[in-house]
């Protein structure tokens, strides 16, 4: 039978649905309009049936659920085996995963089992006139964009970077079918999760912030980092960095934007002292409004910015911080008066 | 992909060596560090140690002394890359040369302690004292002498321009045996501990090459022991001269690296600097400079590698090293000068390193063989070579 259906791997851990799944469902709705095929969310785990509602509301026509104690935590072999069985049984045409560490671990294992093609880290997906999925992804750190297709093998598997596609408003009136698949799953006792240490939970992460202040090599010496942190604080923004600042050990990979870092999509980003090499821009180019400050006006980042200013950031940053603080105290004064 | 390295018979291992030297430089210091070192007139001890730990400081030393057997080509490639990356006359050439001379001419007992310290710290606490105020190029004109007075050996004399001389614990000197006059051709090499009474160390200030501090030594009635003598009595200078040729090869590799660094900087600068509304790379006079600079660098490199190859194949390189040093003196001073000119005003400040390259390259165009002496050597060989 010919392969049919758009599948989304519904990534959950500890019973919490990852936001990226909803992003994929949103994109799938777009693809559905061209393909006219059903969207199925594939949900694996233990005691996770409560998640099916949200999946349907976000766009799934069906949710295939495999609920088994052996799947309580993610381990590669059991998960990949289940997906293999399901794929062979249902023969989907497209199978989307988020390019999270979860997806990047699971998707290639599954793809190898199925002997099909997998395109990683896609930035966009389209259906061409032959009904085939066109997968657009960056390579060479984002300097070259590739359009890839998997003409024959099925399913056409793809991992998509989180934070690229928007999460659409859920439709609470949407109805869908939940299919409980009873598959015999064997836990992998030779893969044992012995410890999990979450990062110190911060209220504001790079991905959740509306306003990001990003600094690059232009910040100069380590003693200048203080002024950047002050600025971020004064603006209630999250501070992000380019790769070189992680390489010298001033920041963690969690703070980094770029091809080997995070992809972000804030409302506003303020770039300070960043040249705009492609491996950086590929991580933030979907930002709504881009403001860039650099002492050299010949930089790639200016060309893609909405607002650009030529200044020495070492003197500009304190000025901006000063004005932000003055503004905050004025606002606070006003509030006091109103009270 | 064919690389011209294959033309020069450079092996894959040698290529990896060059890559490793570059990595060592990138990991161990920046241009800012070099500027700091020049201000202090010294390279920090950790850098010496790291160079030896990485094995580069052991190249060419005999294996019994803990060294790594390496041919001329390897040493030349390593020095060239070091200088190109560092952009300053580094002292390793001197330490490696001194250790080489020491292990060549000294017995195990004489050299054990120094070699041990070198392997541990990378600092060769010995130096070579050859030149004198009245005897630079004219080595025969030296008047330092060791006289037998009763049953004692007494040294009197004055050596100058001793590279790295200020902190040395030991010194290898060449001195005449018994008779200080010009006609006496008998010299000996002596390994002298610098804490002997009668030795005065007077630092000298140079206009460049700040990482290799110079000083003068004054020897007044210094009492020596026979066991300080290295090698045979009377053969001192002859022994040293054999190493001059390798020294010349290595010095040329050094200077080529410096000149190449100048080219790296200048040829990149022409795309960054604009005058009269255009990047200066668009001006023909600048283009001509770059062309001439590149030709000289490629020529010098070819000549250098060829000479190293000849040395490795045990050919007589007296003529080749003389021609090489002569050409190197000219070519590297011209290239660094052109680079300075391209930078213009800012090149004259310490904001760029081209001024340092200019003065450091100029120094080694005098040291280890002036062009005039090279003419003296090569000019007498050539007629014999072409005699019909």
């Amino acid at each position, binding site marked *: 039978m010919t392969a049919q259906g758009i599948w989304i791997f519904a990534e959950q851990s500890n019973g919490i649905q990852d936001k990226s799944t909803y992003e994929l469902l949103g994109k799938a709705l777009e693809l559905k309009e061209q393909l006219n095929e059903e969207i199925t969310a594939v949900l694996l785990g233990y005691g996770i049936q409560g998640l099916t509602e949200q999946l349907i509301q976000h766009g799934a026509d069906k949710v295939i659920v495999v609920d088994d104690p052996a799947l309580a935590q993610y381990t*590669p*072999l059991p998960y*990949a085996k289940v997906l293999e069985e399901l794929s062979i049984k249902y023969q989907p045409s497209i199978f989307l995963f988020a390019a*999270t*560490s*979860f997806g990047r*671990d699971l998707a*290639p*294992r599954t*793809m*190898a089992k199925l002997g099909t093609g997998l*395109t990683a*880290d896609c930035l966009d997906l389209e259906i061409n006139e032959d009904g085939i999925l066109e997968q657009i*992804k*960056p390579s*060479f*750190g984002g300097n070259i964009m*590739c*359009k890839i297709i998997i*003409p024959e*093998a099925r399913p056409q598997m793809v991992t998509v970077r989180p934070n690229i596609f928007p999460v659409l408003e859920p439709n609470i009136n949407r109805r869908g079918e939940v299919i409980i698949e009873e598959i015999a799953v064997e836990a*992998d006792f*030779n*893969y*044992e*999760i012995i410890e*999990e*240490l*979450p*990062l110190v939970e911060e209220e504001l992460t790079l991905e959740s912030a509306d*306003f990001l202040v990003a600094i690059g090599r232009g910040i100069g010496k380590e003693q200048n980092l203080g002024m950047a942190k002050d600025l971020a604080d004064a*603006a*209630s*923004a999250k501070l992000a960095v380019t790769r070189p600042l992680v390489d010298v050990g001033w920041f963690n*990979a969690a703070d980094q934007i770029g*091809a*080997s870092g995070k992809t972000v999509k804030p409302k*506003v980003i303020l770039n300070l002292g960043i040249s705009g090499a492609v491996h950086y821009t590929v991580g933030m*180019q979907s930002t709504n409004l881009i403001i860039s*400050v650099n002492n050299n006006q010949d930089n790639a980042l200016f*060309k*893609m910015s*909405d*607002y*650009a*200013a030529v200044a020495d950031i070492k003197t*500009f940053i304190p000025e901006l911080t000063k004005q*932000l603080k003055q*503004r905050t105290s004025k606002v606070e004064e006003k509030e006091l008066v109103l009270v | 992909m064919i690389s011209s390295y294959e033309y020069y018979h450079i*092996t894959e291992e040698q290529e990896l060596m060059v*890559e*490793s030297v570059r*990595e*060592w430089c990138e*990991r161990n210091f920046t241009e800012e560090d070099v500027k700091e070192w020049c201000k202090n007139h010294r390279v920090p001890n950790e850098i010496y140690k790291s160079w030896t730990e990485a*094995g580069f400081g*052991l190249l060419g030393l005999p294996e019994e002394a803990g060294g*790594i057997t*390496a041919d001329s080509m390897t040493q030349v490639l*390593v020095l060239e890359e070091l200088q190109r990356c560092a952009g300053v006359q580094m002292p390793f050439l001197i330490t490696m040369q001194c250790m080489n001379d020491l292990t060549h001419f000294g017995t195990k007992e004489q050299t054990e302690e120094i070699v041990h310290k070198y392997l541990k710290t990378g600092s060769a606490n010995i130096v070579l004292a050859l030149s004198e105020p009245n005897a630079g190029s004219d080595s025969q004109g030296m008047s330092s002498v060791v006289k037998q007075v009763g049953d004692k050996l007494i040294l009197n004399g004055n050596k100058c321009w001793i590279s790295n001389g200020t902190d040395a614990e030991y010194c290898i000197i060449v001195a005449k045996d018994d008779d200080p006059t010009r006609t006496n051709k008998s010299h000996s090499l002596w390994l002298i501990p610098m804490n002997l009474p009668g030795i005065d160390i007077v630092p000298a200030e140079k206009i460049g090459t700040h990482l290799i501090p110079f000083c003068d030594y004054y020897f007044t009635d210094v009492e020596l022991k026979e066991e300080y003598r290295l090698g045979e009595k009377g053969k001192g200078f002859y022994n040293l001269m054999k190493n001059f040729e390798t020294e010349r090869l290595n010095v040329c590799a050094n200077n080529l690296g410096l000149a190449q660094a100048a080219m790296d900087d200048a040829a990149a600068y022409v795309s960054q600097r604009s005058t009269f509304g255009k990047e200066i790379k668009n001006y023909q006079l600048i283009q001509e400079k770059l062309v001439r600079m590149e030709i000289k660098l490629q020529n010098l490199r070819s000549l250098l590698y060829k000479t190293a190859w000849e040395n490795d194949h045990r050919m007589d390189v007296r003529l080749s090293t003389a021609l090489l040093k002569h050409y190197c003196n000219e070519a590297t001073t011209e290239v660094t000068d052109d680079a300075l000119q391209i930078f213009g005003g800012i090149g004259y400040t310490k904001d760029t390193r081209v001024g340092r390259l200019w003065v450091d390259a100029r120094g080694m165009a005098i040291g280890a063989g002036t062009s005039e002496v090279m003419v003296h050597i090569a000019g007498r060989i050539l007629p014999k070579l072409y005699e019909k």
Partner: protein
Amino acid sequence: MKIVVCIKQVPDTVDVKINPKTNNIDRNGIKSVINPFDMNAIEEAIRLKETYGGEVSVVTMGPPQGRKALKKALAMGCDHGYLISDGALGGADTLATGYTLAKAIEKIGEVDLIFCGRQAVDADTGQTGPIVAEFLDIRQVTFASEIEMDGAHAIVTRLLEKGTQKVKVKLPVMITTTKELNEPRFATAMSIMQSAKKEITVWNSQNIECDPNRIGLKGSPSQVQSIFPPKHKTGNTVYLEGSNEEMAQQIIQVLEEQKVI
């Protein structure tokens, strides 16, 4: 312990452009180096060998110049190099590449640990490791930021988005490495000299018994349909002017309009 490291040779810079005439990537004058993430893999393999004993083999699939990458790995401290080179392997996607590498590792035999870098800086896929693991039917652990051995098990700390996870896995296992794992050593002069005596074995697809339908272009379900330069938003940039004070004021205005402050 027998360790295999899979490495890839990539261009020295990612700053490549498309040649408008050929519509292909302009590789002129670009040097090849070992994929930076694979360097961490090599380093970890050597470190484990030094700590626990064993030998490290390094494998690469590619054209003849892949030899240079292997030489570098040997100079760093690996013991044996394998170059899988064959015209028929050209045009391979990740499935075909993973298959080929797996066949080579099968031939090397009795492997305890396989290391792969987390992604290649040119293709950026990060799939090869898990695919190789699948074809060899062994376990996989990805994004390793720390590794220890415990008898017949590997204790691997994984670096995930929201934190770290420690996993105990029974050998044999395939591990993909991250930059945070270690600092790759540079090859010392001694190590380079010693590597001159180390062997590099060259295999073609038949030596490793590859099914010709599963290698190269033939064995590749995905194909690159086209490549093009990224589209950047150009034009419409508003250049702010004036003193620092004035420009800061203007920026604050924009931020207020956007309601982010």
